[in-house]
């Protein structure tokens, strides 16, 4: 393998581009890490422990009676991220994804109850 072959190999690849959500995070005025960790922890909790997993902002917001729970949940998450259109768009996407995960878990696993881990 000569230098030309190495360069050709390099050019067959390129560094990955930024995730779509990074723009919203960049423009969020709140502290950098905690909203991201909060949302990531919420997603991991729901995915790993099933629909009964509770301590996320989205779950607490979704329990509150009122108009469309998804709208309430997205609003709560957007507020945690500092508000604004970008945060609201991102939060709406995340809530929809979490709902999808919950529905997937509900369809794939027995109903929660009792001594869940």
């Amino acid at each position, binding site marked *: *393998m*000569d*230098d030309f072959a*190495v*360069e050709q*190999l*390099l*050019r*067959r*690849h*390129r*560094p*990955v*581009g*930024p*995730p779509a959500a*990074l*723009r919203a*995070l*960049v*423009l969020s*005025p709140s502290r*950098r890490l905690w909203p991201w960790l909060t949302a990531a922890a919420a997603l991991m909790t729901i995915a790993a422990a099933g629909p009964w997993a509770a301590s996320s902002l989205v779950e607490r917001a979704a329990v509150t009676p009122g108009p469309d729970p998804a709208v309430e949940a997205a609003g709560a998450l957007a507020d945690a991220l500092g508000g604004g259109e970008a945060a609201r768009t991102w939060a709406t996407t995340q809530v929809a994804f979490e709902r999808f995960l919950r529905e997937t878990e509900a369809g794939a696993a027995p109903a929660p109850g009792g001594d869940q881990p």
Partner: protein
Amino acid sequence: MPDRPTEDGRALVGRLYDTYGASLYRYATLLLADAAAAEDAVHQVFTAMLRRTPRLDQEAHYLRRAVRNECYSMLRRRRADMPPARAFLEPAEANVNHDERLALERALRSLPVEQREVVHLHVYEGFTFQAIADATDTSINTVASRYRYALEHLRHALDPS
């Protein structure tokens, strides 16, 4: 407590991110050999501008320098045994072999960051060696040496025979 960003500041930072964000992210990705860490670096630079929007006479130069400094700081703080979070290369053309990408990532990760930086700027951003020297405050001879050593190192890593 950080300054609350103004709407003008947010609009400026949004414009800068839209203009330079992707290329800066790719630059950070190669410097750090880690896509997740690159997110942090880029986020840190732009968030700092939200808190205190600087006057930018040379936007691209300023942002590149800021991302570079942030990446080098992160590398100094990074634990040697910390594994990267996820892949940092993607195919640039069709029919690229997955194993080839993994091997190239491993080989790039084994380079010193200064050599990796020169590879990125020359191969992926098309910088001349003189432009790289200007961007990294080094001499053109140093840049040329780093590139030569980088290719040699990659060659041996990818084809030990």
